[in-house]
């Protein structure tokens, strides 16, 4: 039997070493990620994209690379971005990510992007924005009235939004499907943690969500598409080696199990 401490050390090494020493394993782009890319890519400049940061701080290493890659694409296409959070911890994170990526592209707050902050009770917030965004968010995160923000001029509800993207670590995209897609027929894409990705394949197949990014792999694929390598692609080396390590451990565990069974009857 391998003791637990050794397993922990092996996993730590299999994650840490590939992050330092790059293996450069070639990645490939899946159709679900391509769908998100194409959906954004076909939008005319000045179209408005909503990005909802529906996650907590715990999943930051997995969701941030996805959000950054999507935002880089949006800003490089000169799309207008409205950011907000439907989970409290996503607020500070969303604001920072948006500011960082906007600064890379010399985008101006209030003209090219806004961050509206956080609203509790996500069902009511999603439904409410379908009627009137300013009713749900009368002011932005900086307490500026939306009426005074030039970018928000002429934006009333989902009819003025081209695409909604939920960056989530839970089942929030399902609520977007329930309330924004079903009721307001709005296009919604999802960028979720890898562990949640399988939950959204039925929505993807039914066309209720347009494209799906699943965890670090989704981020890595998107980075390939926008030709801007980032933490997603670096992380895929670590994920490859750690998956391989877990598989080797399972094989070793089974070998031990069968040998023990053979010798002890």
């Amino acid at each position, binding site marked *: 039997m391998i003791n637990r401490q050794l397993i922990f050390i092996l996993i730590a090494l299999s994650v840490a070493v590939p992050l330092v020493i790059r293996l450069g394993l070639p990645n*490939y782009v899946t159709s679900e990620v391509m769908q998100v890319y194409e959906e954004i890519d076909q939008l005319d400049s000045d179209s408005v994209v909503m990005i909802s940061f529906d996650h907590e701080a715990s999943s930051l290493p997995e969701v941030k690379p996805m959000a950054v890659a999507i935002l880089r694409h949006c800003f490089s296409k000169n799309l207008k971005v409205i950011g907000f959070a439907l989970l409290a911890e996503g607020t500070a994170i969303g604001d920072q990510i948006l500011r960082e990526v906007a600064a890379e592209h010399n985008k101006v707050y209030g003209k090219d992007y806004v961050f509206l902050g956080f609203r509790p009770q996500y069902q009511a917030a999603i439904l409410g924005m379908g009627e009137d965004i300013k009713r749900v968010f009368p002011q932005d995160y900086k307490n500026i009235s939306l009426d005074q923000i030039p970018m928000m001029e002429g934006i009333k509800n989902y009819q003025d939004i081209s695409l909604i993207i939920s960056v989530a670590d839970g089942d929030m995209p399902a609520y977007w499907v329930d309330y924004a897609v079903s009721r307001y027929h709005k296009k919604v894409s999802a960028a979720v943690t890898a562990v949640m990705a399988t939950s959204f394949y039925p929505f993807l197949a039914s066309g209720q969500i347009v494209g799906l990014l699943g965890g670090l792999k989704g981020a890595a694929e998107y980075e390939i598409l926008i030709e801007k390598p980032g933490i997603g692609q670096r992380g895929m080396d670590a994920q490859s080696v750690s*998956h391989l390590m877990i598989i080797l*451990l399972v094989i070793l565990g*089974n070998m031990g199990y069968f040998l023990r069974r053979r010798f002890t009857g």
Partner: protein
Amino acid sequence: MQRAIPITVCFVFGFFMLLQFFVPHKLSVLAYENVLDWMQIIFVFTLLVGAASYIRLNTKKVVQTQAGWGYNLVALAGLSLMVILGFWKGTGENTPFLWMFNNLQAPMQATMFSLLAFFVASAAYRGFRARSWEATLLLLTATVVMLGRVPLGNLISHWVPDTANWILSVPSMAAKRGLYIGIGLGTISTSLRIILGIERTYLGRR
């Protein structure tokens, strides 16, 4: 009376929201928007109740010096500090609140989440055994999906990611769809039971 009022409120609002969906009249939309506003207002009050309960529970353990009271003290200190910092300098850019969030809360939460990888590896080594035909199938499926979801799988053969994608988008999705349909039907029936006052457990035991 104590039960009749909430049941009546639930019935009226439940049916209003149900009917409103099919009535696009201006008045109906206005009332609907007001209900949505109220939902958010009420939810904020539930947050206050939650915070009050959290403070009461932790304070009680600290005052009575129950086992592990030090952790409760840290929890209370953390809550108080973040509230004070938030009110003092706000929560935006370059504030102490944001510094605490970025440098303490986010790394600590991410660390807790990351520990899962270690536990999963240890549990997989100890528990993932090909004891039966079903267990072997599960083991093989997990192996293919794990390899197929990383670039390594594609290096071995394009069949690995192709098979992994097929597993996710056919058998796995079929099972998920079945679950979702079941959940949907269950939600409809439970909602109707609540609206009609048949299901009353949300009112408490008395």
